[in-house]
């Protein structure tokens, strides 16, 4: 028998509704699993035992009445530490936020609670979501449940949503919220054998989400299946008057997309994504993906996105520039940790920020401040924004002739801690296939499609047209079905 914690979200929701088990039972099962596993995996940075059980009891009361049930009634979830949760410490895993405990709820999490979901706790991440491995978290990195065959070295579950990926992959929640500024949902999904989707920019409200780079940040879920991710995303998204960039049209019924035929769809394979030094395993997985989609009745064509190679350098101007502006709010005066000095106001600011921000965040704030500073603004920031327009134009042109694009999610499988951290640029290259969807605002899903020679998961990415998450879910479900991915990490923790 499958234990409660191993259930897929969709099945758990059905089991709760039919009262095969109660929310308290499954919530307690997850809390027990977290208490046993978290000392080894470090996925949760806060575990909300009492709140979880109270929410579970409330859900059980509603389930007993059987009226006005939410779509996630009684389902226990993990929340990335980036989302403000009323009364529960939220720090984006940065020291500068100290013991910050929001007095309000983010729209995304409020939508989940309105749907009856249960909060298990807050999940580890890179500080302010800046990183690809979670090595920048103030709480230390989580450890992926995955390991290379015959190798005990701890691996990263990716970043920045590494705690979310670890928790879902290790059965420490049914699904988790995550966020994606350059690939922070999709790269961890690929590394941990999960499904992750970043919707079209503006679908998910950014209200109450700790800001990194406002024109790139989007929330999305990490889940075990395409169907689970569609259910999560459908509940998380909503038009929101409190976010001026929120898309005002209603959220479509994405849960109806998985399982629909892709016959007659045209799928583009961008030739510029065939990068130098790409491992043969990634290349052959991509080829398999093409075959699966063709067998399902799609037409495959090669397309060109000529400005692809400029996406990462443009991102590393735009994102730090927006971050330097967003993170200016952390001055130690109104909230967060203050480091008092005798040197007056400016000195207090500088000391507070030097103590509160980790080295990677400081590095990006310096880059951002530099590219926005007088005399360099045009050469760097303005130029990057123009390159960004050209990257979007590449996609617009490709989408004249194709319905969606198929690419690998990452250039490699998960790596061990320390393997990349020495060289910032080498670490940034992780995002090479994912960052274009952030710059252009497009929806993109990562679906587990196979394992490498070490037995580690690899993902394929489907990028859709603006507002066409449906295509991501449809094509993603075909990949999921064809790949029959059922690898699980061997339990060592």
């Amino acid at each position, binding site marked *: 028998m499958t234990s409660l914690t191993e259930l897929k979200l969709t099945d758990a929701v059905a089991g709760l509704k039919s009262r095969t088990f109660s929310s308290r039972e499954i919530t307690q099962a997850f809390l027990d699993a977290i208490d046993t596993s978290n000392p080894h995996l470090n996925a949760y940075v806060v575990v909300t035992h009492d709140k979880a059980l109270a929410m579970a009891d409330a859900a059980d009361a509603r389930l007993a009445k059987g009226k006005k049930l939410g779509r996630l009634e009684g389902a226990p979830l993990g929340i990335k530490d980036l989302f403000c949760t009323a009364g529960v410490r939220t720090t984006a895993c940065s020291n500068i936020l100290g013991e910050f405990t929001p007095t309000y709820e983010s729209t995304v999490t409020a939508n989940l609670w309105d749907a009856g979901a249960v909060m298990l706790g807050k999940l580890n991440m890179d500080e302010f979501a800046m990183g690809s491995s979670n090595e920048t978290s103030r709480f230390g990195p989580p450890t992926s449940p995955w390991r290379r065959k015959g190798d005990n070295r701890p691996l990263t579950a990716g970043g920045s949503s590494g705690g979310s990926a670890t928790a879902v992959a290790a059965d420490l929640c049914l699904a988790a919220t995550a966020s994606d500024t350059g690939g922070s949902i999709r790269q961890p999904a690929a590394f941990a054998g999960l499904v992750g989707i970043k919707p079209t920019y503006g679908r998910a409200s950014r209200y109450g989400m700790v800001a990194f780079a406002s024109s790139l940040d989007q929330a999305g879920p990490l889940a075990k299946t395409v169907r689970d991710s569609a259910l999560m995303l459908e509940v998380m998204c909503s038009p929101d008057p409190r976010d001026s960039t929120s898309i005002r049209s209603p959220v479509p019924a994405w849960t109806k997309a998985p399982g629909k035929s892709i016959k007659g769809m045209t799928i583009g394979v961008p030739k510029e994504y065939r990068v130098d030094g790409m491992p043969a395993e990634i290349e052959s997985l991509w080829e398999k993906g093409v075959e699966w989609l063709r067998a399902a009745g799609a037409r495959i064509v090669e397309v060109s996105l000529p400005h692809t190679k400029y996406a990462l350098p443009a991102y*590393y101007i735009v994102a730090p520039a927006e971050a330097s502006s967003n993170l200016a709010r952390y001055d130690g005066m109104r*909230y967060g*940790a203050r480091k008092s000095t005798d040197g007056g106001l400016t000195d207090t600011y500088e000391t507070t920020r030097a103590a509160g921000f980790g080295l990677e965040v400081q590095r990006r704030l310096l880059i951002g401040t530099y590219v926005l500073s007088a005399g360099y603004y045009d050469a760097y920031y303005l*130029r990057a924004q123009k390159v960004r327009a050209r990257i979007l134009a590449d996609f617009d042109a490709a989408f004249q002739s194709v319905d969606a694009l198929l690419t690998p999610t990452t250039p490699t499988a998960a790596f061990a801690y320390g393997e990349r951290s020495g060289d910032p640029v080498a670490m940034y290259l992780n995002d090479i296939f994912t960052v274009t969807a952030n710059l252009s605002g497009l929806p993109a899903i990562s679906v587990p499609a196979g394992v490498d020679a070490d037995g580690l998961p690899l993902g394929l990415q489907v990028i859709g047209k603006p507002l066409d998450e449906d295509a991501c879910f449809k094509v993603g479900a075909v990949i999921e079905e064809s790949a029959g991915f059922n690898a699980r990490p061997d339990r060592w923790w």
Partner: protein
Amino acid sequence: MSVDKDTVRKVARLARIAVPEDRLEPLAAELNGILAWIEQLNEVDVEGVEPMTSPVALSLPMRADVVTDGGIRDQVLANAPQTSDGFFIVPKVVE
């Protein structure tokens, strides 16, 4: 364009981050590594291209100019490092 120690000092001051003197040189080297990599953007022809500031091609929404929030002083102050009588306490600003 390359960054030297003095530029790092100046930028760190603008970013309000105290950087110890012995970190300036290594930081300059790191930033130069990143900036050198970014330089490849100069290859792109951006003549006549409008800069893209947002991925959503929406006009900013308007709302009625009415008060919808407020009266939550205690919530606003709840996370302040130092407060007194309903005020934030900050270091001395004017000598």
